[in-house]
């Protein structure tokens, strides 16, 4: 098993809300704070735009991890959007678990536009977690 | 006792919060508990001081205080605390800590005068024992 993980480069899809987390990622860039290139950002207006089906689709197409990052509760640009996100995504998490996906593969985090370092840190930790888990084989489309 | 890093970082708060179920750390020292306490004049530490010393971790000062034993559990403080704290429970928490850790019941049957035994209602004697010995 550990041999299989050698050289494994996980693919991580990050849904980032435009106002906070995407800006946080920009700030990590401006501040030249490195994090693993495994992370690919998809920009959404608000974390509440993330349909659970997007997350499932990512796993089906071979993503090894998915993260939804939005504004801190109370700071949402759309004032209550991320509140719905929280509820909806905790249901999704249970569903994924039920489908046999390790809970660590799907995370929801609050990262503000001023938290460049936090963005880099979260992505670094997440990549390490997923790397340790190995590739996602559960939901992957049998292509 | 002096306030030191050790007292502030001690487990006293945790301990008394466990026994009493009250969030002693949230006391803002408004003094309203002491302001209405009927036993104030007999106390060597005023109720709000007990809270403060607990926040600072000064256990010995609290443990040797007479206050714990003159508090009548009248709930006046609890009815008025601006932080919704029940000091009667905190006092009980400290009494319990002391009785359980050090033993030393503070009420003995022989302490009662014959007159008390004759006149005092059961209720007083039972509650006295309940409070002062475990």
């Amino acid at each position, binding site marked *: 098993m550990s041999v299989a993980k050698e050289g494994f480069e996980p693919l991580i899809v990050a849904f980032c809300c435009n106002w906070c987390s995407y800006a946080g990622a920009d700030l990590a860039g401006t501040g030249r704070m490195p994090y693993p290139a495994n992370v690919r950002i998809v920009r959404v207006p608000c974390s509440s735009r993330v*349909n659970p089906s997007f997350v499932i689709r990512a796993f089906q*197409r071979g993503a090894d991890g998915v993260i939804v990052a939005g504004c801190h509760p109370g700071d949402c640009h759309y004032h209550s959007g991320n509140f*719905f996100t929280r509820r909806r995504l905790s249901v999704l998490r249970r569903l994924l678990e039920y489908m046999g996906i390790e809970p660590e593969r799907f995370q929801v985090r609050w990262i503000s536009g001023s938290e460049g370092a936090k963005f880099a840190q979260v992505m670094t930790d997440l990549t390490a977690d997923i790397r340790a888990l190995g590739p996602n084989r559960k939901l992957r489309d049998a292509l | 006792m002096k306030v030191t890093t050790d007292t502030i970082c001690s487990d006293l708060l945790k301990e008394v919060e466990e026994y009493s179920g009250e969030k002693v750390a949230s006391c803002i020292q408004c003094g309203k508990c002491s302001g209405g306490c009927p036993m*104030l004049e007999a106390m060597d530490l005023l109720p709000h001081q007990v809270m403060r010393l607990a926040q600072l971790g000064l256990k010995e000062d609290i443990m040797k205080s007479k206050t714990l034993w003159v508090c009548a559990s009248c709930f006046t403080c609890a009815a008025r605390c*601006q932080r919704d704290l029940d000091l009667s429970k905190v006092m009980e928490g400290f009494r319990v800590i002391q009785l359980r850790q050090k033993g030393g019941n503070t009420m003995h049957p022989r302490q009662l005068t014959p007159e008390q035994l004759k006149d005092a209602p059961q209720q007083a004697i039972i509650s006295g024992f309940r409070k002062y010995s475990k």
Partner: protein
Amino acid sequence: MKRVGVFVCWCGSNIAATVDIERVIAAARKMPNVVYASDNKYMCSELGQASIRESIEKENITRVVIASCSPRMHENTFRKTVAAAGLNPFYLEIANIREHCSWVHKEGEVGTVKAISLVRTAVAKAARNEPLTPSSLQITKRALVIGAGIAGIQAALDIADSGYQVDLVEKEPSIGGRMAQLDKTFPTLDCSACILTPKMVDVAQHDNITLHTYSVVEKVDGYVGNFTATIRKKSRGIDMEKCTGCGICYEKCPVKVDSEFEAGMAKRRAIYVPFPQAVPNKPVIDRENCRYFTQGKCKVCQKLCPAGAVDYELEDEVLTVEYGAIVVATGFDILDLQAYGEYGYGKHPDVLTSLEFERLVNASGPTGGKILRPSDGKPPRTVAFIQCVGSRDQAKGKAYCSKVCCMYTAKHAILLREKVPGAKPIVFYIDVRTPGKDYEEFYNRATDEYGATYIRGQVGKVYPEGDRLIIRGVDSLSARPVELEVDMVVLAVAVTARADAAGVGRMLGITTNAHQFFNEAHPKLRPVETHSAGIYLAGMCQGPKDIPEAVAQASAAAVKVVGLLNKDSLVGNPTVANVDESMCSGCLECTQVCPYDAIKEKSITERRGRETLTRTVAEVNEGLCQGCGACSVACRPGANNLKGFTNEQILAEVDAVCL
């Protein structure tokens, strides 16, 4: 087929030093739909933009991907470039290969690989971009201000001075609010009436302000730039045109009730002017107490009125007016002290609230400004002031700090000494909070010059003993019990939101916090805006604040209003939600999640064969929608989709990322 053009930027060496531009271009050329790919050293420069325009035209490009810095940096720049080339500006997508790539992945070739992936994702989305046109909204050049305390007055004057029409709606018979009730004001001890009355007169005389007193806003519809409000002008029973304000009518009215303005410290008649400087200075008949209205006879005032202005038959007037912007300035109440039996308020006449004390000190108040005990009319020698009554109290009152009471208590101590020489003010406090310019100094004057004694400790109990009041408390600093005999007790009672604030909030579609104060859009950076565009906040209705802060916030709200009304039209955000009626099941799930209440149900009629069916569908108000997309997620049939971030676009991005 879509013809996508890819333009890769070097950003000098910012990108090019890490990402192999050549390889990105080569890879891009092989991506689906891509017909053209090229690079430029500085894409945002005049030259770079020109090259994009030329290529679009020459290569007949219909969708554009620019791989460069963050869209948060240059999306607008490049949208204009694309538009200049004759395309819809929303045909553009940006691949962020600088902030999200070259600057953070410097090792080896991972940067190049990721850049290619980012370009592929942007291409996938761009190929599905639809033309979007921002709507253009007209703006009604008129503002509504609700509540005419100092905050509402200031906001109305500032907007009116900028040349716009303002309607100022006040539910009481006079404008002025709480400030009109105060005596002198901290930290300068200006007389409240002396600085407020001129502003009240300005309001009355301003050409651009229409005053509606004794009026309430009953309904508000619409959205930024286009509100419609229904205002009920309650009947005063007085013909305002005829009335000269002579005041003869109320002298003989047989009914006496507690005066609200005097905080119950004096009586008024059933026909009355709340206070001498009232604006408008014309009476109103209080129908709940007037004998004519309750018992059918009296009419004394009508008989006396020399102008024939009293008219019991006058009815409410209901106006419907359109506005571009709304300022909410409904102010505050004080806490009901029912739960605070320990302070003896309501049981003993010499225990007063701070607001009652303001009236007692006021030269136009019930005692003509003499501080006298309500019980026996004698001047008090010692007065205890108790701070934080009902504030900072999680058990029986309000958890927050009321912010103004430390300062006005210091003021009261000073005023006591000024009015009753030799009297002793004693203040019970938990903390003295004086952040503000000259505030600490003001408090220092109370202790240093006016001999106020401050005792740190909340009072346990107040009770009468003979004709004096006993205060039992503690000085927590010295840990000594305190037992004082005083002549009067003044309670610095918590300020609260207006009792009807939550209802006003619902009517306007703005939210309140746990204590019913209106929520600002951002506690630091958007303190006068609400989450509903075009609705602004001023004064205490947003949270405890003193007069200087209320006025500052009012002027700030006025600037926001004027900034909005100054625009010719509002350019809407085109990335709004859209409902495909043919797919909508009418479940209305989407209406539940919208933070802006932008989705409403509507009925549509359609023909199915021979039958005509009526069914419910959802409809998005594009003026209100801010484009968060929550509704699109809530929609199970997939009828609701967010333009610019459609389900198809995002799924295409996900697929491209995972390739």
